[in-house]
Every structure is written in structure tokens, then in C-alpha cells.
């Protein structure tokens, strides 16, 4: 608790506060000690010299009885948090069935995305599946083709992890210039969750995967019956060229068939009752509503691996099996959705993640990339997981260009947009993991800008 004098509304009735003029509001301000009430709406707009002098009103909630237990059997966020929701972009997709919604990055704290705020990406809409009738079939190049109930799967040893899932189209609207003046829309195709389920390795062991198997694919029980090929050691593409060592030899080891997220069953939009989780990779590979795993000796090159999720390059060719989401980061405060309120002390906060392992360092710049300062990484720091970074900032009230640049444990440093465009062009759609710049104006507004000079 600090001893600084701050202003608080004397009457917590929101409408009354809203109706006050700034002058009458300040007249009613009173002196208090204690930093816990920093939420005071206009505190920072008052001059630093303003002092709270009027005795505090007793909050009406001190004088009533609240709700009893289980009046809301499954707890929900406060009604005052109703603005914290997933959102979609109407013009991005022709319907909301094969579409995407965005996580409100600006409102996330810590490293876990609440299940109800996890971004959604459906190709045939979200379906409701009865776990009693749902089955997982595992077959192909195996000694023993098998079928499992959900109860069967829960008898296997549990494997869990804190892993992000990111649609590789995260940021895709920004290749040709600034479009989305909101961190929810520039970066909200990513979420981070504690996933719980069965190790793929245990399932492979149970069915006896044959040594000829160099790929497997998962398939969903939704209207898209979505399928994606995942490499195993020895994997080669359809031209006979090997998949990279990292992709073929490490990705599969982390994979689970998940039945739980953040302490409870999967949400329907996230694949209830079971889904594949392929940590670090394009979320499209983490097939939802999973009904089948087939072990094979070649990729499918299915719709999701040719027409979509291939990256158009500046020479006209398309990259395929761009599986890993490379190191990325974004400042979530300040951001266009969370503006500044007067000069003084702040903490710059943000999230970083890498599909190749742990985040090693995050650097922050407030001068458009001329100078950088290493931020603090907030524990815990897990592999292929959101990592929270913070840096104290004394804002002088002048224009600033705020950026973050993450580095992962492989030494890969998050690139600039110019570096990506110089290498790939602007028609790639996917894997735009470049450094994001927010322009903070003297009036405290924050906007999305691009620095093409870097």
C-alpha cells in the first residue's frame, strides 16, 4: 500500500459519477491513503496536487446482504466485465460457421486464457457431442487397430501441460499495412491453456505403431471432418524430401489427446469431448472433436495442407508444412484498447510465446526501436506457453513508439515486418510473427502503426 494521495469517486453509483461534471467530481474528492483503489476512474486525470478531502461514502454493498452460495451454480464473471468477450470481424469471413473469433488480449492477466475467452476457429461450426457415444479410432500402420471410449482414454496415465494454441493466420490482416487498431484483432488468434489428456506416445504404444509409420493424421467428428497430417521421425513430403529435423523428431513427443482444459472438460468450441493438442504448432493441427487417428507412411496433402495453411511467397511458390509458430510477442499494455491516462508511472506488460521452446528474453523499446531494454519475465516460464513480461515505465507524456521483441531458447529473435516482407512478400497470409509497434500520442491515445523503415 502506498501513502500517495489519490482521488476516488465518493459515490460508487456509476450513473451518478457519470453525470458529474469534472469540476463537481473533483470538489467531492477526498483524501485517502492506500493504493488498492487505483481503479478510480478519473484519478489520473486530476492534477497531481489534487487531494481527497471529503469523507468517504459508505458503499451500499456494506449495507445489504449479498447472494447465497449456489445462487449461481457455475460462476460467471462480474457483470461489470461484460465487455471482456471474444469478438469477430464481420468482413473477414462470409459466415460465422467457417470463421474465427479473437481473444481479448488486452484484458488477459497472467498467462492463462479463461476457457470462455479462448479464440475459436471452426471450419464447419462448433458441434455438441455426447461423450457417452463418442469414440476414438486408432488404426493404419499399427499392430492392433483399436477403438476407445472417453472413459477408456481416462484410464491411461495423464499428461498435461501449459501450451499456447495459435492460428497461423494471427496478424494476417496486417501484411499490406495497418488494418486493425486493436490488440484483440492484431494478435487475438492465440490463447494459452492448461491442457490435460493422454500422451500420444502411450496411445502409439497401446496400438503398436509399426516402424513404417512416418506420419499420422487426426480427423474431427464435425461437419468439416477436418484432418491434418503430423510428421513422425522419417517423415518425407510428397516429393520425397525430408521434413525438418525439429518438425519430424520433436513435435510428436509433446502431443496429447486432451479431454480437459483449465481444470474442467473441454469447452464445445474447443473440441469437447476430446481434441488433439499439438503444442507449438499451427492450431489447425490440433484437431477438435477428434474421432480418428491414422498412422500412415505419407502425408495426406489434404485441403488444409494445400488450399489453406500454405504460405504464398514472393516468387509465386507456396510453402507447405509450415507447422511451427515461431517466436512472437506483443505489448498488451499500453495498446489501442487500453490507453494512457496522464504522464507518470506505468508498467508495460505483454505476452511472448514460441513454438520451438521457452522464451529466453523479451526486450522493450519506447523509441521506435532505437534502444531496447530487457524486460522482466514473470514466473512461470514454460516451453511453448505464454510468457508474461513486464517493464516499469515512467511516461513523460510525449509521443512514444512502444514495441516488444522476444527471443526463444533456440536463439531465434522475433523479426521486424520488413525482414519478413523482404524474405517472403506480402501474400503469405500465415506466420506473421513480426514486432508490433504501438504509437502512444501525447493525449494518451494508442494506435497501431507500422515501421517499414526497420
Amino acid at each position, binding site marked *: 500500500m502506498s501513502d500517495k494521495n489519490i482521488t476516488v469517486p465518493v459515490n460508487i453509483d456509476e450513473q451518478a459519477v457519470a453525470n458529474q461534471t469534472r469540476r463537481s467530481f473533483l470538489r467531492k474528492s477526498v483524501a485517502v491513503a492506500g493504493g488498492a483503489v487505483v481503479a478510480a476512474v478519473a484519478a489520473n486525470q486530476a492534477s497531481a496536487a489534487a487531494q481527497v478531502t471529503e469523507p468517504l461514502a459508505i458503499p451500499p454493498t456494506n449495507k445489504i446482504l449479498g447472494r447465497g452460495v449456489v445462487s449461481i451454480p457455475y460462476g460467471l464473471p462480474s457483470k461489470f466485465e461484460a465487455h471482456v468477450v471474444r469478438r469477430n470481424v464481420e468482413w473477414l469471413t462470409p459466415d460465422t460457421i467457417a470463421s474465427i473469433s479473437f481473444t481479448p488480449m488486452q484484458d488477459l492477466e497472467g498467462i492463462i486464457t479463461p476457457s470462455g475467452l479462448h479464440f475459436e476457429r471452426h471450419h464447419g461450426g462448433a458441434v455438441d457431442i455426447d461423450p457417452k457415444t463418442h469414440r476414438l479410432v486408432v488404426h493404419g500402420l499399427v499392430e492392433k487397430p483399436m477403438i476407445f471410449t472417453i472413459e477408456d482414454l481416462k484410464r491411461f496415465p495423464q499428461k498435461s501441460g501449459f501450451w499456447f494454441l495459435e492460428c497461423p493466420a494471427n496478424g494476417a490482416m496486417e501484411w*499490406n499495412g495497418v488494418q486493425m487498431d*486493436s490488440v484483440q484483432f492484431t494478435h487475438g488468434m492465440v490463447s494459452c491453456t492448461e491442457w490435460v489428456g493422454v500422451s500420444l506416445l502411450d496411445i*502409439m504404444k497401446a496400438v503398436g*505403431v509399426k*516402424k513404417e509409420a512416418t506420419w499420422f493424421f487426426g480427423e474431427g467428428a464435425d461437419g468439416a471432418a477436418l484432418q491434418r497430417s503430423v510428421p513422425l521421425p522419417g517423415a518425407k513430403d510428397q516429393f520425397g524430401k525430408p*521434413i525438418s529435423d525439429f518438425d519430424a523428431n520433436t513435435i510428436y513427443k509433446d502431443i496429447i489427446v486432451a479431454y480437459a482444459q483449465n481444470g474442467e472438460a473441454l469447452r464445445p468450441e474447443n473440441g469437447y469431448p476430446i481434441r488433439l493438442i499439438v503444442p507449438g504448432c499451427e492450431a489447425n493441427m490440433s484437431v477438435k472433436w477428434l474421432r480418428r487417428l491414422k498412422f500412415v507412411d505419407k502425408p495426406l496433402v489434404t485441403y488444409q495442407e494445400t488450399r489453406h495453411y500454405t504460405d504464398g511467397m514472393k516468387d509465386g511458390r507456396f510453402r507447405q508444412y509450415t507447422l511451427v509458430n515461431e517466436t512472437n510477442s506483443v505489448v498488451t499494455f499500453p495498446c489501442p484498447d487500453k490507453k494512457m491516462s496522464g504522464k507518470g508511472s506505468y508498467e508495460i506488460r505483454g505476452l511472448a510465446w514460441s513454438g520451438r521452446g521457452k522464451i529466453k528474453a523479451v526486450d522493450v523499446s519506447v523509441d*521506435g526501436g*532505437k534502444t531496447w531494454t530487457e524486460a522482466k519475465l514473470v514466473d512461470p516460464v514454460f516451453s511453448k506457453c505464454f510468457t508474461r513480461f513486464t517493464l516499469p515505465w515512467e511516461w513523460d507524456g510525449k509521443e512514444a513508439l512502444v514495441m516488444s521483441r522476444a527471443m526463444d531458447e533456440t536463439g531465434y529473435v522475433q523479426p521486424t515486418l520488413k525482414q519478413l516482407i523482404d524474405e517472403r512478400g*506480402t501474400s503469405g497470409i500465415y506466420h506473421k510473427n513480426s514486432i508490433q509497434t504501438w504509437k502512444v500520442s501525447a493525449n494518451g491515445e494508442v494506435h497501431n502503426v507500422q515501421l517499414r523503415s526497420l
Partner: protein
Amino acid sequence: MFNSEVSKSAFGKSVLAAALFAVSSFAFAADANGIGKTITEQAIAPWNISVHFDGDGLPAGKGSVAQGEPIYQAKCAMCHGEFGEGAKGYPKMLGETVEHMTELAKKGEDTVGVRGINSLWGHAPTLYDYIRRAMPFFAPQSLSNDEAYATTCYVLYIAEIVKDDKLVCDASVLKATKMPSQDNFYTDPRPDVKNARCMKDCAKGDPVVTQMAVQGVSGDTSRNVAKPANH
């Protein structure tokens, strides 16, 4: 110990099968005794509908361009266009040719909106796979195998990939049909860019800020959907 880690060195070698079935000496080892049931391929068959790029998995049956036309016009044209030109924001069947799309890409022009089956789809068998499993959008898995062949055949025709309007498509025809973009793919070479972790004096001169709101949104997230910035 849970003997679940299949090591890189063991994988792909003859010891793999043995490793997978290794019985641990620990009483609490993770085996799968009594978990799940075995299942015959015959029982799996209704779900085993995946088709590989080389045609592996294509079923028996056939369908012609002529048979595909009424199916496409009734069930597909409202989204993909009467002539495959796309509609209402849904994908084109007939986009720019690979050659023209490549020219656009080399000129630095956007190619996202011009893609069709003719410009970006590697293999005809997986076109069949996708149509059978996921189309028509509003009624997936409602086409018979023959109807899926006919629809695939018609789409190949209106996408100008096959020229013969008398064509009858079956497994062998789809396997033999070379898609224009088949060789236009290559496997991920990333990491492809290398940024340095510079800490000071990193940028020369003042940063050039560009703001090019083309079709963007405002920062107003009071609504549940984004709205265009340019209004």
C-alpha cells in the same frame, strides 16, 4: 516409470516394435491392459474415408462432368458461382492461372483474392476427398461416392483443369490428372529470417511511421464486431 517415451534413436529402427510392446518390470508401469477394444478394418470403413494426394484411399465408383453439372448448380453455385467465379466471399473454383498468379506475386501484388482450384490445389484426389467429406457446406457427407466423383469432375472442368466435357472421373482418372499447381509447393525452410538482438543505436534516423488503414477497424471494442475504420 511410465515407459512412454519413444526415443528418437529407437524410432524408425527395428527395435521400435519391441520397444512399443516392452513389458515393464514395474507393477505400476503404464500398460493398456483392458483399455479399449480392438476393431476390424471392416468396422472402421465408414469412417476411413481419407484420400491421400496420390489417390490412395479413393473408392470405387465414377461420375461424369455432365452428371456433376446439375449437382454443382443446385448445391455449390450459390457460394462458388455459376461459373466457378466465387460468390458472397466464398472461394473461387476458377482463379488466376498459376502463371499469372506467379507474375502478380513477383510484381509484389496481392494474390490472396485470386486463388482458385486451378491456381492452388496440389492433387485431384484430395479435391475428391474434400468434396466428399465437407461439401456441400450446408450438408457435409451427403453426396454418394458417385456424386462426389461427378462433382469433382465438374469442378475440374469449370476450373479449366480438364478440357473434355465428356470426361468420366474415377479413381484412375483422378490419379492421372495433373493439377496446375502440383509442383508449386515446397516444404518449410524456416527459420528464414535472422534478426539481431541489438540493444542501442539500432535504427538509423527517426523511425518512419506508416499508417495505411485500408479496410480496418476502429479501436472501439464496445461492440462485439469490428467496424470499418474508413467510415
